[in-house]
């Protein structure tokens, strides 16, 4: 199955109920198997500049990369680094977006200090490579099991990990807005990158903290599961729930439903079959 048929993608972004600006940015393309979400930070409109630059740069650079058919084999292992080729591409593109945002922030005083979180998922050959920086998340629903896949780069997560604070206390923390990694705030940044097998029927949710700070994980999971048949409606419903609960932050969601297998045909026989289809 081609990616465009195998994946269904719904994207939404909303300023919420309190903020006048939307500093979140989203990109989604089933055809390319690529989804990107960024939650910007920085005074005035600098946050939206940072998140906008991140999604636009990554989407266009990956778009170019993915067009080089045959040259881009994300699953292959890179001889130099011993890592998957997909990791090298993500590292390079994230580094280039990081430099672009950092340099803009350095050269233009009105953008000084801007930065953005990032979560992106790249689907290829029944695999997904997930990269993230900061506290924007990726969740997965598989066979009724809904769980967060990424681990926030935040002060709160570090406090949770070290046992300083319990999950219940964390819900009441006023340090929710502190991220320990961001794109564009330093000359270099290290994205966290992991690979996962994809199964038909999986639903992936990428979101900014405007969703998971306003709506419990359990409620988010139930909504995705209940409305799995209508992804657009599920995306609308998630935004609405964040806003109904106060909508104190910008809220963005990207839903990706895996309808079928999207392995690349390997042998001549499979290639012929694929071609005949």
């Amino acid at each position, binding site marked *: 199955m081609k990616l465009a048929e195998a994946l269904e993608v719904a994207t939404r972004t909303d300023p919420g109920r309190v903020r006048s600006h939307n500093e979140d940015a989203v990109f989604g393309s089933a055809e390319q198997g690529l989804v990107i979400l960024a*939650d910007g930070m920085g005074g005035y409109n600098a946050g939206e500049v940072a998140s906008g630059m991140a999604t636009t740069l990554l989407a266009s650079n990956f778009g170019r990369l993915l067009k080089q058919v045959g040259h881009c084999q994300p699953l292959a292992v890179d001889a130099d680094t011993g890592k998957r080729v997909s990791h090298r591409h993500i590292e390079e593109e994230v580094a280039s977006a990081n430099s672009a945002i950092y340099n803009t922030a350095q050269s233009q005083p009105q953008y000084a200090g801007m930065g953005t979180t990032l979560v992106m998922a790249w689907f290829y050959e029944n695999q997904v490579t997930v990269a993230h920086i900061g506290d924007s998340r990726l969740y997965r629903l598989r066979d009724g099991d809904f769980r967060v896949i990424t681990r926030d780069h935040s002060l709160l997560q570090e406090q949770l990990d070290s046992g300083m604070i319990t999950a219940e206390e964390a819900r009441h923390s006023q340090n929710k807005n502190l991220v320990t990694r961001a794109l564009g705030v330093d000359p270099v940044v290290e994205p966290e990158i992991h690979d996962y097998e994809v199964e038909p029927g999986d639903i992936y949710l990428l979101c900014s903290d405007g969703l998971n700070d306003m709506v419990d994980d359990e409620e988010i999971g139930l909504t995705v599961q209940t409305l799995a048949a209508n992804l657009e409606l599920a995306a609308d419903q998630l935004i609405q729930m964040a806003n109904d609960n106060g909508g104190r932050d910008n809220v963005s969601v990207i839903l990706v439903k895996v309808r079928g297998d999207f392995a690349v045909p390997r042998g001549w026989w499979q290639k012929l079959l694929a071609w005949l289809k």
Partner: protein
Amino acid sequence: MAKLILSMEGLVLKEITLGKERVTIGRKPHNDIQIDNLAISGEHAAIVTILNDSFLEDLGSTNGTLVNGEPVTKHFLRNNDVIELGKYRLKYINDPAIAGDAPDFEKTMILRPGAVRPMEAPKDHSNTSLGMKAPASAAPVAGQAPAAPAAAIQLLNGANAGKELELTKTLTTLGKPGVQVAVIARRPHGYFITHVEGAQFPVLNGKVLDTQAHPLSDHDVIEIAGVKMEFFFKT
């Protein structure tokens, strides 16, 4: 910034701003908050503040430290918590809504390395850059919005005619998966029905709905996949 209001038997004695990372409380004069009373230990308790959160720690005091009536050794402080040391009370105030520095907060900033030194762990913070996004306030999530009044649907025909289904969940789906499904969303200001899947759309009071959400009124009649049902508010 968070503060403490020190009082004894209802009489306010002092207001203390938690401006330092570590504020100590005790009977001896070197404490940041000195309470000269024999029920208070020399070094009784300490409050460690990390950015916008504060943690209370009893330093092995003789008479102990209570928070909201419960003895604690270490406690994550929440707005309006009452700390008791002997006859003295310290009320913890940390309300983002009334914080004087809120406008600055909204403007968002990046904190550079070394800006935060969390107590104990984690130690590897020195090389970490901290970015601050405009906070979305820290009030507890969920259950915040006023709930809509209780409502239910009753099936009017079919094998289960007369059966009642209470709409207690945020989302209740109706119909047959793969054939025709609609969902009723319970929102703070009422109930809404929306088409989810299937070629046929739900019928509301004899009218076929479109893809948009429609508010439900008392005694509305819904038809989904050939089954009629009545929506009503429970009183």
